[in-house]
């Protein structure tokens, strides 16, 4: 009785040829309470539209705090808590990301950051499958807050030459 045969999430399942109970989402699926799945998740993909020039909704204090929390879970391990790019994983040999304080990233539209989270870029894989769109925007808002909070930092000291351009 303790195993009545029903599947728990992510169990191995003999009923599907690939043995996976968790089915990959087919393009066009509409998750309950979510948006239609538009493309399969790859490691790194190219965005198909130009980066958005502004935030789709206003960010309040609670939104920024949520952004900070999500940033610290998913980004700080590489980009560092302040965004200088000296995170723990980088110190263990992962390619060094550019500092967020570079002039070119201060000038980049919010959509650029959103697109990198969604699709990945270079050595950085996408986080679109783990962070919901609203939280991606809140992370972008938090990165903006970091940038504005340290106006004198030009980021060059913590950015390797090939990432500066």
């Amino acid at each position: 009785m303790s195993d009545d045969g029903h599947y728990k999430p992510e169990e191995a399942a003999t009923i599907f040829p690939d043995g996976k109970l968790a089915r990959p989402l087919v393009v066009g699926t509409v998750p309950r309470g979510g948006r239609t799945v538009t493309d399969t998740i790859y490691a790194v993909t190219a965005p198909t539209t130009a980066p958005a020039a502004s935030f789709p909704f206003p960010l309040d204090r609670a939104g920024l705090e949520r952004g900070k929390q999500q940033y610290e879970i998913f980004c700080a391990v590489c980009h560092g808590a302040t965004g200088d790019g000296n995170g723990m994983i980088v110190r263990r040999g992962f390619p060094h990301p550019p500092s967020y304080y570079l002039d070119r990233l201060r000038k980049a539209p919010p959509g650029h950051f959103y697109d990198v989270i969604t699709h990945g870029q270079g050595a950085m894989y996408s986080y679109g499958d783990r962070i919901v769109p609203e939280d991606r925007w809140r992370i972008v808002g938090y990165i903006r807050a970091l940038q504005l909070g340290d106006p004198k930092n030009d980021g060059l000291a913590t950015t390797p030459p090939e990432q500066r351009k």
Partner: protein
Amino acid sequence: MAQIFHPATNVIAKATIFGGLFLLAFVCYVAAGVERSPWITHEGMYREQPVPFSHEHHVGGLGIDCRYCHTSVETSPFAGIPATKVCMTCHSRLWTNAALLEPVRESWNLNKPIAWTRVHDLPDYVYFNHSIHVAKGVGCATCHGRVDRMPLMMQAHSLRMEWCLDCHRNPEKYVRPKEKVFDMAYEPPGGREQTALGEKLVQQYHIRKEQLTNCAVCHR
């Protein structure tokens, strides 16, 4: 008619009756002990895994948050085991030649999931839900122990019904402030202070203590 049994055999008869009762009680005692023992509950036993994934290195050493990998723990009943892609966000560039990680790379290249061995497994007639516990200030470490010190995953508690009920009867003994839920190093304040803090948090988080021991909470 002569007596068949000598009067002294009365002692033996009494001894057998009492002895029998004692033996029965002893067998029950041993059975209860065995049933609660790690041999049955798997408490404290390490499991072999296809990749010797170490929470000690990744959580304790590198400081990665639980939610980087167990992403759905706050939003769903199921905590979620990370997909191979999650490992590859780092291991596409780190330890790329290590033999230990060969199954991860193979899984990524062939698009076949890694078959992790389940460590915690409640019987199918029990309903459990992570998101409510996390939302009401029950820390991962309260149920899973010091994960950041486990070189291989093991089950820190028995997961028997009496273990769930010990907390469901008196949640104030265990609840902590919400922002400390993922903090492995959090030390609850001792004795009376924990009770005072716990009672405050039970109020604040609206924990419905009276209903928590209803059978239908866990057996639905």
